[in-house]
């Protein structure tokens, strides 16, 4: 019986090992594989794009992974991936890498759909996140503590939010922190007294995006530059991308690719 168990164990280990990606590369020798990793804000859109890309081109396989903007850029440095995704600008010491703007994304301030507030000023939002405004009454609603949520230190979305909204003020320490757009949205969708900021592309009917300084957060206003809280989504490559990688980048920048991004709630480069 123990022999049987060890046989099954070793068999399963062999099976597991053969699932490894490198082996897959060998066995599908004819397929071109592109590995993309980085920002979790960009990831869902690139996954969509890669699906469309692969349907039309069966010879390609695009592997999209998360990890965060910084991790993606790091991996690009080490050449372990072909393309990095970033939702923040490259820092000075990262400038040796190439960056390609693939689209623009608005950051929207969101509340629960039951919240009657439709509009805040930039000043008020800053007040909520730097800790000066703590109660919904100060914003013209009921007497209840505001449950504000921010992203973790180092996140691309947080970096852009600090640059575009907080200016030189710090986000207060008493504010809750979550580590992805998804969990932030989940809290806002379930807590009627929550307020937070997420990527505009991820706003759906479970949360409501607020107008800022009288400008509502929608694609039209981003295109006409009325809505100011906008950041670029970047592709990062180390040196000149190879032919296979370039095919994917060209597809993302093509009219087809850009149309898909627009449909998903982002703003194209043209």
């Amino acid at each position: 019986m123990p022999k049987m168990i060890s046989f099954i164990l070793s068999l399963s280990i062999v099976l597991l090992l053969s699932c490894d990606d490198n082996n897959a590369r060998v066995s599908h020798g004819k397929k071109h594989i592109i590995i993309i990793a980085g920002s979790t804000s960009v990831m869902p859109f690139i996954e969509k794009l890669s699906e469309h890309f692969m349907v039309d081109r069966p010879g390609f396989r695009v592997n999209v992974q998360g990890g965060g903007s910084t991790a993606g850029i790091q991996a690009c440095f080490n050449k372990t991936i072909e393309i990095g995704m970033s939702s923040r600008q490259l820092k000075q010491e990262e400038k040796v890498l190439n960056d390609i703007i693939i689209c623009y994304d608005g950051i929207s301030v969101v509340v629960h759909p039951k919240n009657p507030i439709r509009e805040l000023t930039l000043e008020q939002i800053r007040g909520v996140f730097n800790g000066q405004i703590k109660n919904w009454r100060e914003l013209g609603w009921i007497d209840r503590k505001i449950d504000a949520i921010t992203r973790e230190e180092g996140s691309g979305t947080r970096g852009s939010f600090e640059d575009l909204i907080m200016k030189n003020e710090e986000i207060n320490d008493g504010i809750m922190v979550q580590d992805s757009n998804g969990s932030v949205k989940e809290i806002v969708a379930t807590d009627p007294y929550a307020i937070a900021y997420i990527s505009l592309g991820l706003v759906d009917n479970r949360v409501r995006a607020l107008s800022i300084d009288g400008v509502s957060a929608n694609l039209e206003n981003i295109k006409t530059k009325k809505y100011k809280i906008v950041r670029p989504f970047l592709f990062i490559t180390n040196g000149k991308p190879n032919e296979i990688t370039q095919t994917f980048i060209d597809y993302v920048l093509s009219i087809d690719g850009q149309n898909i991004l627009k449909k998903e709630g982002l703003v194209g480069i043209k």
Partner: protein
Amino acid sequence: MKRINFTKEHFVKYVLTIFALSSLLFLFLIFIFILFEGLPLFHKIGLKNIIFGFKWAPTKGSFGIFPMIVSSFLVTLGALFVGAPMGLSCAIYLSEYSGKKMKMFLKPALELLAGIPSVVYGFLGVVYIVPFVRNYFGGAGFSLLSTSIILGVMILPTIISISFDAITSVPKTYREGSFAMGATKWQTIYKVVIPSAKSGILASFILGMGRAIGETMAVIMVAGNALKIPTSILDPLRTLTSNIALELAYATGDHRLGLFSTGVVLLVIIMILNYIANFGIKKKVIR
């Protein structure tokens, strides 16, 4: 024939020795690795500024983790507050009151409780406990209270199994002596059995603390992760472990080193707790 057996015996012995020592090697490597990555920042920023600093803004050069140390201990004490009475009662029931059938049913159930992945606890916390706290107690629901409840349940198996062992290892003669003096069952448990098993029970609490302080996933999901020291049980808070897990993905340079420093502090705290627990258990065994 004999000789073949002999060499085989030796072979097995050596293989087992190597595997046994490899666990020591892993521990050693982890130590070296964490210290190697974490200590340079202590040198650069200063031990005092890290351990007693109130401000954590690693991208702006502040690495204070004092609020997280306090929060870690707060959730741990909260977990004990929830888990210890329940766990101890369960252990007493199991060893003194329950019949064989009930034991056969309860023990595997407890083992199953220990085997449930922490992300499942966290998920249940987010879906049920957080809204419950928000609706009935106030605040955002992501709070010290919710975290304590979740962790209290998570440390139950540790507390129950170790204090159960401690209580059952109290010699039968103690109980018989007590009964002979005319004591009732509860008097015997309360005055004789528990005091004799005291060190083992304390050890179970401390190991439970170790489990609570090291828990990460469930805590991230329900604690709210705010950086301030909580002023009420309804405030959100961030523990040492969740600090590392939250920020690791995006951290570079000094920020990354700062997270390793957090790890060093955590390692030291867990070492101290384990040392205390082992000391308690040893005392019991010697006696």
